[in-house]
């Protein structure tokens, strides 16, 4: 007995290590045995970056409902596994898994990588949903949306799902987002005597200054606007970006209402637009008016660290979207459920058209684009794409979407779905200005732009210095990025060509009464998918190729967007007159 005890005592470390290893091996092996997909079980992996309160619960809840429904129909269970990845490593996670062939079945699209790279990934690694999204959603049977094509059940008519370059519907959204300014009502009242902050820009700045000049009992100063680098982006998109709306007139060459990054490149390269354009200058000027109200060291803070200041009642305002509404409300309640402070929600302050500095660019209210972003795409490596799409249909059906957004506390994306009571103040403003500043083309330019922006917002370089440094880098790196984007577009057009060929061939076999309709669709699709993008690209390429030739012979003589020659205007008038005459008949 003593000998055993002595052995155990002498080898205690080894025994402990061996026991720990045995426990670990047991845990890993039993889990591996459990995770093998059974014959009557389908596993769907869902990847997203939505780490807000309730989102993961909502996916789980809807996953269970869907599984029950699917089981009734097929006798098979569906298990939803979530990969909830933080924003900071989301791009890398998506890249490595898509390239490595281990991608989750459903991926939320839009964060962590430049648009060009997302487009490339959508093109290579995702399943186009065009044919499916044009059919009615079976889970809407018995509702007012029964029989309505799936894409038309979304509040934006499916626009956010459609990728212009790939000419395909690629994603299915689940929620709409709107951005607002949250504030601590009690603290605002204590520091300024107001319960509602002013909406006019200069009055808001004056109020912020007043808040910033006051100190807490412990000597620390109050922060008017809780912000981090993330929140800076929110401010920029809501207050500063709309001032660049007028860039449409200089760079929206295809006149689709948005200035794309490629159009910006063509405009900059051809000298039609410069980074020190007055509208862009105004964008940065308004930013520099904001930053003194941010907390010290905000450039080094992460998103949660700004929330920390707000929750600590050291900051009065925090800008964020519907996605944070519930989390912020929770921070204002203590462990016993008692309200610590009241959280108010308002729209962002903005300069008026009479403002001496921003007036020429502040031409109206800020447009709240219904923002169904972060939609899910189905990857090509998905073993059950049909089931994955069904799950998306379920989650974005009228009832499913209501339930999903009720749990997560966001705005439903489906037309007619009830908005949670707490989100009434987020009802979007659908008239007004929006940003048209797309300052980078792809990966290289986005990294450089971000680096210089960081230095600018830290107050280390002036706007002019930033422009001076960025312009040559943009022109050099942008060329490379633009070429890559062009290649991807060409790959997309090949796929589109295959689709059209199939359609052309099927024209021969369809009954005569359907041939006319199909022919019209074929012509329309050919124009939309092949002709217009080709013309757009050709226009851009012409602008880029002719850049630097000056105004002499051989230079680009194309008119600016929205500027029509007299002949074109009269042709347009004539066409309009004809069509009105035709309609009146």
């Amino acid at each position, binding site marked *: 007995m003593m000998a055993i005890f002595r052995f155990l005592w002498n080898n205690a*470390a080894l025994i*402990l*290590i061996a026991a*720990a*290893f045995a*426990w*670990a*091996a047991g*845990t*890993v092996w039993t*889990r591996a045995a459990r995770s093998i997909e059974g014959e009557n079980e389908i596993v769907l*992996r869902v990847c997203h970056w939505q*780490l807000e309160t309730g989102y993961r619960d909502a996916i789980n809840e809807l996953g269970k409902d869907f599984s029950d429904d699917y089981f009734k129909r097929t006798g098979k269970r569906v298990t939803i596994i979530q*990969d*909830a*990845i*933080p924003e*900071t*490593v989301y*791009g*890398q*996670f998506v*890249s*490595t*898994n898509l*390239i*490595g*062939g*281990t991608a*989750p079945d459903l991926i939320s699209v839009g964060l*962590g990588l430049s648009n060009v*790279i997302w487009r*490339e990934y959508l093109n*290579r690694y995702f399943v186009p949903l065009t044919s499916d999204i044009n059919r009615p959603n079976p889970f809407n049977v018995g509702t007012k949306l029964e029989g309505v094509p799936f894409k038309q059940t979304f509040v934006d008519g499916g626009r956010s799902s459609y990728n212009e370059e790939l000419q395909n519907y690629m994603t299915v959204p689940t929620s709409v987002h709107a951005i607002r300014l949250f504030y601590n009502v009690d603290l605002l009242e204590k520091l300024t005597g107001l319960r509602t902050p002013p909406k006019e820009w200069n009055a808001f700045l004056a109020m912020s200054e007043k808040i910033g000049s006051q100190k807490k009992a412990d000597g620390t100063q109050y922060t008017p606007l809780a912000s981090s680098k993330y929140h800076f982006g929110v401010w920029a998109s809501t207050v500063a970006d709309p001032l660049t709306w007028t860039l449409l007139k200089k760079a929206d060459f295809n006149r689709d209402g948005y200035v794309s990054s490629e159009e910006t490149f063509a405009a900059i390269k051809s000298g039609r637009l410069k980074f020190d354009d007055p509208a862009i200058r105004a964008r940065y000027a308004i930013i520099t008016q904001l930053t003194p109200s941010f*907390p*010290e*060291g905000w*450039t*080094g*803070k992460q998103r*949660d*660290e700004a929330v*920390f*200041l707000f*929750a*600590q009642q050291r900051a009065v305002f925090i800008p964020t979207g519907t996605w*944070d509404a519930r*989390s912020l409300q929770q*921070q204002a309640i203590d462990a016993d459920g008692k309200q610590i402070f009241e959280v108010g929600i308002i729209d962002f302050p903005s300069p008026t058209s009479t403002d001496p500095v921003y007036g020429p660019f502040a031409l109206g209210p800020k447009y709240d684009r219904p923002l169904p972003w972060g939609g899910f795409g189905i990857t090509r490596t998905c073993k059950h794409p049909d089931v994955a799409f069904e799950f998306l249909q379920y989650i974005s059906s009228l009832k499913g979407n209501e339930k999903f957004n009720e749990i997560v506390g966001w705005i439903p994306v489906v037309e007619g779905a009830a908005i949670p009571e707490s989100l009434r103040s987020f009802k979007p403003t659908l008239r007004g200005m929006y940003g048209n500043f797309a300052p980078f083309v*792809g*990966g290289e330019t986005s*990294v*450089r732009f*971000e*680096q*210089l922006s*960081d*230095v600018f917002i*830290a107050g*280390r370089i002036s706007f002019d210095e930033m422009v001076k440094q960025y312009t040559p880098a943009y022109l050099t790196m942008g060329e490379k990025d633009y070429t890559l984007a062009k290649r991807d577009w060409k790959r997309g057009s090949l796929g589109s060509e295959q689709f059209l060929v199939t359609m052309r061939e099927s024209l021969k076999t369809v009954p005569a009464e359907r041939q006319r309709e199909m022919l019209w669709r074929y012509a329309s699709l050919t124009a939309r998918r092949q002709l217009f993008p080709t013309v757009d690209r050709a226009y851009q390429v012409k602008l880029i190729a002719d850049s630097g030739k000056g105004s002499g012979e051989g230079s680009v003589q194309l008119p600016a967007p929205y500027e029509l020659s007299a002949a074109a205007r009269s042709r347009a008038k004539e066409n309009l007159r004809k069509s009105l005459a035709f309609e009146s008949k």
Partner: protein
Amino acid sequence: MSSNFDRAIVSIRHHWVLYFFVLPAILLVAVFQYYPAASGIYHSFFRWNGADIAEYNAGQNYVDLAKNDAFWRSFELAFILGAFNVLKMIPAVVVAVCIHRCISSRVQFFYRLAFVAPMVVPGLVVALIWRTFFFDASYGLLNPFLQSTGLMWVLSQADSLLSWGGVFTPQASPSWLGEPRLIVPALLLFGLPWVGSFAILIHLAKLQQISKDVYEAADIDGVGWFGKFTSIELPLILGSIHLLLVFVIIDTIKDAGTVMALAGVNGGPGGAATVPALFMFQRAFTSQQMGEACAIGVVITVVVLLLQKIADLIVRKEHSGFHFAGFIARGAVAAIGGIMLYSGASWLIGIPLLMVGLPWELLFKWYRKWEKESLAEARRVHDRQPFVRPPVRELTAGQRKFRQVGLSLLKHGTILAVLLVAYLPVWLMVVVSFKTNQQFYADPLSITFPLIGQNWVEAQKTIMPNVANTLYFAGSATVLILIIGLASAYFFARRNMPGQAILWNLILILMMMPTIANLVPLFGLLRDLNLLNSLTALILVGASGGVVFATFILRNFVADIPKDLFEAADIDGASHLSQLWRVVLPLSGPALGTVAVMQFIAMWNEFILPLVIMRDSNLLPVMVQLLRLNGEYIKYWGPLMAGYAMASLPIIILFTLSMRLFVRGLSEGAVKG
């Protein structure tokens, strides 16, 4: 020649089985080290997206890199960090000497034990704690410390004198991680008091070899405490400093994890904290320029090899002989360095290149010649004078006591001050782990009641499966490393076999090759082997790196085993396997223990490779899981800190339990310096 050939044939005929001892190691390094390295070099000449597009571009990646300012800046930063990391080795030496000077062995043991916990807390955990609790401008501890000690005033004066541009002002709280010009100083400050995990123990193991007689003799000769350090202790630990210097250099160049945890994937504001490995990571996984990332990997490897050479030249004093090829190569390197300096391209790169290119051997030779001649002259002068013993300064009993107490206070004070700073992150981790968010908001730094034990229960649910994953993969890999490493060490140490020298050199080169440089091709290899998102991949890759290290360490150990034992075993007819089992294994316990602890801790702390190759959260190693938890938008600080603590506890327990074995291994020369 013929006799050599005959001997080789005889060796192979009688001992061919020895090749099977080294075969697993060779296979492992060939597949997971050499193949990715070769693939990296190959793909560095392609425009490669990591998947299906690979267009040969004839070195354009290298040309693009040469033109890329950000690339050069990343190396400049690595050089700055490297230089400071060398300086950061000093506190470990000081602390080791202070502990060694403690008379009581119990006190020594206590201090050694006390240093274990803060030293082995995983680097990622320390970085995340520093980020939040030290560097934050609003509630971090660094700014209040600088304000309260008046250091901020000093810094602000220095700012206005040296025109730093108003980074420091007396009342402001600078943003250490948000200000482009402060992020590098923040990286330098990180980890204060810089007492590295192994450095103290390695130094202590060396210092233990000094006999008490030496100190007594020094006392009799009137040698002071500093004299003892420079004449007795420093020469002895120079070897281990040399060894650590090599590790520091390699670590600085290959480290991306610390910067990523502190400053983010984009390298902080303006990308000011982008080190080469992080730059490569960005090019590969954010910009999808895999070919260019491979080219960066190749450059990193070359730079590490060059730096290793510099370290070797600087530390080693014995250089002799003249090699024409080496002279030409040096000349070329010096010329490049000179051109870079002259053209103003990058003085930070130019100077080190110039240093590599200098004919150090000749310079040392001339210096020694001059030293010898001047000493001879001095001795001649000295010998002509009559010998007068210098007067020994007699101290009174009171003075002696005062001096003794003063030195003792200085010694213990230094150790305790270092311990205090070292324990601060641990304190914060533990204290916050028992708080609710509201308690944390109200008072982040001190103990508040009631203590919330539920946080640990929640953390246990979130973290323990990942702890199991890490224990499993790190444990399995360590066992593989020990088995394969010992077998291959036996091959290299037991007999001279044909091809042995080549194989040894192949292993030695890998010691210097930074694994991260081959990250992209390794990722491709694992994809082709269908090993992505599996713990097997982590085990195999971890083992392949560890085997190189283990072979390197254990070979010396096996070689030191008395030959008589093997001869006796041979006479008894024992096979090689039997000799390995019955002779080598029983004697290698301490060395195996040292290797096992070092490798296990290295794998426990690894997070870049798992971050890239793992997908499923239930398969993630604990460090990656911590990184994910840290990315939550609304953090629940209590469970998060409890999670940090749980991720640190196993490694603290392991190290505490195995410390004796570890130190014994070090003392017996496991890590020879």
